[in-house]
């Protein structure tokens, strides 16, 4: 149901004459723009509240947090607030799920809008009741004085506020609004901070709700897209006769884009298996996998940025007596979402509706509009829960494929990938090499520190789907991605007096055409990669300086919140009394500080590392919901552990060989930790920052440091798989 439909269904367009005052204009519907209060909050005739959220929950309970914040500011019950997200007809483009900013950038606007709605409603009540605002209180949507009362429902239920808020003119993550109302001080919070339950658990557990894979449109065809067998290769010819025995099966081909469609899904699957396509062979697009890191080291630098530069590193190194140096390597990794992506599109001559699991549906709208040559307001994108999303995965490609195919065949089209589309053809997290160098003086003090990351850009294709050039259908039909050259540096506050943190990008392996090694954002883009190196390197320096890894970090960290999480995690884990096999790592991400202690056991015979226990200390400012926060952190730990121990995209000279769970193994439950202890540091005075990603970046180094503590051997190449463990132990 879109905004207009539900407003109609709820009687929103019925003009009531029971009362009127200036704050609420008549029933005309204002446009869906950030500068209208109605774009954020609606009060229904029964007093229920709808909050229109332009970011997305991917199963970590963000919508519960938003509901808590809105309930808090409006003084209504948590259960009275429904959060609608991901529908371009009901919400503004706040950037979708992006950079763990759901609460910090996303809910921040809802907090202001809800506070403003409350202010306007109380003012309206004051006019209606003839009682000064200062004599009114609000509880559960009822505005009352000593002897009079009214309700939000009576004041505006089913109508529009028609009230302006000040929009900063930005779209996406930077979107903000300003309002005269002042949100509550945290000391008055009654709903924020409570461990309230998620809204999406029951329907998932009982199988009663719909995923994007379950969207069915009458008359739709099922489609499967045929990806090239090798990187950048082109179609020579397609033998449509090869699928003529399959009822209703048809081929769509546009340049190097090939798909099969059929009324029955199984027929589309069979047609995809049986279709004969003659491809031009293009050999040697990729380097020898065994020499991947040599390729990275030797590659031309396309951009270098020195993000942190204090003092004069070069001259200190030139005369240093003791230098510690190390290099760390991280492979390409896949989103490998639980199911391959799915999308349904219904393209008409003058408009298109697309159902997508993309975490950025507003950008899907923009991309589909460009792809089909439609005005943006003629495309309606509707997010429906997908099979997991941790960044720019294959969902963006599926949405564009569906829209393209629907327009081609003039019918609604449902596209779903097969397993290899989610593992081999999703955009990859970039392979990279990290080099650390530190100078230590005679007293053991670190006098110079340098850390440089070099790798493929984390945005060869953009992090959203707003441009067809960043999708596989765009690449296959001859549009080259523009790409952005960007990587990153460690996020910490070590106060080394001479310090240089830098990154360098290298050219993509395939400049144009479809590549299964195109790179983009995967959960905490380049965070696990960089900190696998930097936080191991801090340990290596600490040991070279003869210091305990916790004490060393505390000695140099200059930000008190950073030091506080290190202290908290060491205390909770009982660091000083732990035996062999313990490792610590620390990092910040976007204002959130996190430290983790891993405790591992190493089986020298099998090469298995079992990370039996993790202790995490996490400070993301004000805590909205400790229950969903803790579980989000747990998910980060395990996802991070999987990427640390198991995950590596395999490839040969022209194709990706990781196509399923056998060729791209991830963590299974036998390797899950026994315990994850989480210490939440609540700082009500500090605006909340993200939790969806920060913890994942500290897991790899904590495990590698624990492995060193257990064995005396360093593992500087990820993943820390049994072969590498055995090789290290026998070296």
């Amino acid at each position, binding site marked *: 149901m879109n905004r207009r439909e539900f407003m109609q269904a709820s009687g929103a367009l019925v003009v009531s004459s029971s009362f009127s005052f200036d704050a609420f204009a008549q029933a005309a519907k204002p446009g869906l723009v950030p500068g209208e209060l109605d774009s954020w909050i609606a009060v229904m005739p029964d007093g229920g509240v709808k909050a229109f959220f332009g970011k997305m929950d*991917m*199963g970590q*309970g963000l919508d519960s947090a938003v509901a808590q914040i809105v309930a808090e500011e409006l003084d209504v019950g948590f259960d009275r607030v429904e959060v609608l997200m991901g529908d371009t007809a009901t919400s503004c483009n706040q950037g979708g799920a992006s950079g763990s900013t759901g609460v910090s950038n996303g809910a921040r606007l809802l907090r202001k809008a809800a506070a403003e709605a409350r202010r306007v409603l109380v003012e309206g009540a004051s006019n209606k009741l003839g009682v000064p605002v200062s004599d009114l209180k609000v509880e559960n949507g009822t505005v009352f004085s000593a002897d009079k009362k009214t309700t939000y429902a009576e004041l505006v239920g089913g109508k529009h506020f028609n009230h302006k808020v000040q929009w900063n003119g930005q779209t996406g993550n930077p979107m903000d609004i300003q309002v005269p109302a002042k949100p509550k001080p945290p000391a008055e919070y009654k709903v924020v901070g409570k461990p309230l*339950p*998620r809204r*999406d*658990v*029951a329907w*998932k*557990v*009982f*199988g*009663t709700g*719909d*995923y994007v*894979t*379950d969207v*069915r449109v009458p008359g739709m065809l099922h489609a499967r897209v045929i990806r090239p067998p090798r990187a950048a290769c082109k179609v020579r010819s397609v033998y449509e006769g090869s699928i003529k025995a399959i009822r209703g099966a048809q081929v769509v081909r546009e340049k190097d884009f090939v798909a099969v469609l059929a009324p*029955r*899904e*199984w027929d589309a*699957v069979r047609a995809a298996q049986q279709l004969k396509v003659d491809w031009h062979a293009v050999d040697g697009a990729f380097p020898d996998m065994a020499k991947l890191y040599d390729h990275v080291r030797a590659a031309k630098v396309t951009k270098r940025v020195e993000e942190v530069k204090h003092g004069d590193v070069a001259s200190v190194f030139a005369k240093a007596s003791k230098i510690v140096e190390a290099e760390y390597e991280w492979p390409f990794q896949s989103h*490998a*979402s*639980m*199911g*391959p992506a799915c999308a349904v599109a219904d393209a008409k001559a003058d408009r298109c509706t697309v159902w997508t699991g993309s975490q950025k549906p507003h950008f899907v709208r923009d991309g589909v509009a460009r792809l089909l040559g439609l005005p943006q307001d003629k495309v309606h994108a509707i997010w429906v*829960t*997908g*099979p*997991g*999303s*941790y960044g720019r995965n294959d969902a963006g490609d599926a949405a564009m494929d569906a829209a393209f195919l629907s327009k081609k065949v003039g019918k609604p089209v449902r596209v*779903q990938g*097969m*397993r290899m589309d989610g593992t081999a053809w999703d955009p990859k997290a970039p392979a990279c090499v990290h080099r650390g160098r530190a100078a230590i003086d005679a007293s053991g003090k670190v006098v110079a520190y340098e850390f440089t990351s070099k790798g493929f850009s984390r945005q060869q294709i953009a992090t959203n789907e707003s441009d067809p050039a960043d999708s596989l259908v765009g690449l296959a039909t001859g549009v080259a991605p523009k790409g952005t050259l960007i990587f990153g540096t460690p996020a910490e506050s070590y106060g080394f007096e001479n310090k240089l943190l830098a990154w360098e990008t290298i050219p993509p392996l395939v400049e144009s055409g479809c590549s299964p090694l195109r790179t983009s954002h995967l959960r905490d883009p380049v965070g696990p990669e960089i900190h696998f190196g930097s936080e191991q390197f801090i340990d290596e320096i600490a040991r070279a300086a003869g210091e305990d890894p916790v004490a060393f970090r505390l000695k140099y960290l200059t930000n008190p919140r950073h030091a506080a999480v290190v202290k908290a995690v060491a205390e909770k884990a009982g660091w000083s009394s732990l035996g062999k096999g313990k490792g610590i790592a620390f990092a910040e991400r976007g204002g959130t500080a996190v430290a983790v202690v891993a405790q591992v056991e190493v089986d020298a015979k099998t090469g298995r590392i079992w990370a039996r226990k993790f202790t995490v200390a996490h400070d993301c400012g004000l805590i909205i919901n400790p*229950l*969903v926060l803790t*579980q989000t952190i*747990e*998910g*980060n*730990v*395990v*996802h991070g*552990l*999987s990427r640390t121990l198991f995950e590596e995209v395999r490839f040969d000279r022209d194709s990706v060989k990781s196509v*399923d*769970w*056998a060729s791209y193994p*991830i*963590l*299974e*439950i*036998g390797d*899950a*930790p*026994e*315990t*994850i202890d989480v210490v939440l540091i609540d700082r009500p005075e500090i605006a909340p920052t993200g939790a969806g990603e920060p913890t994942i970046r500290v897991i790899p180094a904590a495990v590698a440091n624990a492995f060193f503590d257990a064995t005396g051997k360093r593992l500087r190449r990820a993943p820390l798989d049994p072969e590498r463990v055995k090789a290290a132990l026998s070296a």
Partner: protein
Amino acid sequence: MARYRLTVDGKPVTLTAEPEMPLLYALRDDLGMNNPHFGCGVAQCGACTVHLDGEPVRACVMPVSAAAGKTVTTIKGLGTPAKPHPLQAAYVAEQVPQCGYCINGWVMTAAAILEKNPKASDAELREGLAGLKCRCGTHVSILRAIKRAQGVLT
């Protein structure tokens, strides 16, 4: 194409399909059931898991002809919000799923394990659940929920 009779979540159904078509497509496309999911199509993840005469099977590779005459139970037939299976109640209590797409594999497999061995140890659970995937990393809360359900069952 051939006709097959089977029972799905307590209801008798008749299907017309190629014998080799996987049961998953019959459930999803012919019967319009949304809850078993396509995850891999090669029995490597469990997202499509249903019970066939009480045993967990991967519907993505089980030919529909092999299910003929048998009883299929999906997660929807395992329990309902009004009458949940103890594992479903425990999943809600522990707030286990994140994206939730993997859930059929874990719940249907664990239900079968607990049916035979309600007191399964941590090691037995981990072994019995091998092969299942969860990409959001909810494994620790999955084990918590199963142990909570064991507390109700034993």
